C-alpha cells in the first residue's frame, strides 16, 4: 500500500471520528478545498482553518450523520483518488450518492488540494438547499 493511501485512510478515519486535530494534521497549511455544485456551501475554502470551519458546519448541519463508505482509495507520491459512497441526513433530506474525489499531496504527504464530483450533483444541491 502506498503511504499516501494510508494517509487518505488516516484522514477519513479522523473525519469519521470528528477528530479535529487528526484532520488538521492531514491538511497542508495552505490547502485548498473545492466544493462543487450550486448550493450554499459551494465554493473554494482556502487554508486549513477555513476548511476545518467548513467541515464543522457540515457536521453540525447533518447532526454528524454523514457517512463516507470507502469503495476504493488510490494514490501515488503526488496525487490520490477516493471513490466513496456518501450517505447522510439533514432536515428530512436523505443523501445517498457516489463521489469521485481527487487529491494532491505536498512533499510531506499532507493534502494540499481537493476537488470532487458526485453521481448525482443535483441530489447534493437539494440536500443543502
Amino acid at each position: 500500500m502506498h503511504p499516501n493511501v494510508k494517509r487518505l485512510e488516516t484522514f477519513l478515519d479522523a473525519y469519521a471520528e470528528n477528530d479535529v486535530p487528526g484532520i488538521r494534521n492531514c491538511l497542508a497549511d495552505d490547502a485548498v478545498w473545492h466544493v462543487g455544485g450550486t448550493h450554499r456551501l459551494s465554493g473554494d475554502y482556502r487554508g486549513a482553518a477555513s476548511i476545518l470551519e467548513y467541515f464543522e458546519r457540515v457536521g453540525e448541519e447533518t447532526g454528524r450523520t454523514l457517512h463516507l463508505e470507502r469503495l476504493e482509495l488510490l494514490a501515488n507520491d503526488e496525487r490520490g483518488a477516493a471513490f466513496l459512497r456518501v450517505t447522510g441526513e439533514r432536515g428530512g433530506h436523505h443523501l445517498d450518492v457516489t463521489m469521485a474525489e481527487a487529491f494532491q499531496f505536498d512533499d510531506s504527504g499532507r493534502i494540499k488540494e481537493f476537488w470532487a464530483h458526485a453521481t448525482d450533483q443535483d441530489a447534493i444541491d437539494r440536500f443543502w438547499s
Partner: protein
Amino acid sequence: MGEKAERLAEAMALVSQGDAQGFGDLLLADNVTWHWPGRSSVSGEYHGRAEVLELLSGFHRLTDNRLQVVPLDLLEGEEHLMSFTQVTAESEDGKLDVIMADAMRFDDSGRVVEFWTLSNDQEAVDTFIG
C-alpha cells in the same frame, strides 16, 4: 500499466486518429453514464454510448482543437481509475490552466460504466466552454 490503463490508452489513440466510434466501442459500456459538472453548455448527465459520443463530439467542436493536454498521473485500482492531466488553452477570456481528474468506474468486462470529469477550477472550465 494495468489492463484498464492499457484500454484507456488504446481508446485515446483511436480518438486522436478521429475514430470516436472506435473509442466508444473499445472503452465504453452500453449503459455508461458520463457526469459533466458545472454550468456550461455541456454540463449534465449523459446516459448510454450514443449520448456520450454526442457529448464528446460537441465538446470537440466547442474547443476546436484549442486545448493542450499534458498527462500528469494515472492511478489504477481494482474497479476504478483516475487520470490527471494539465489542460491549458488560450481564449478571448484569457488563459485556461486547470488540472483535470477524469474518474472512471469499470465493469467486469473492462469497460467504463461511470465517468466523472473533475476540474480543480470548474468556473474557469465553464467560462472557456461557454
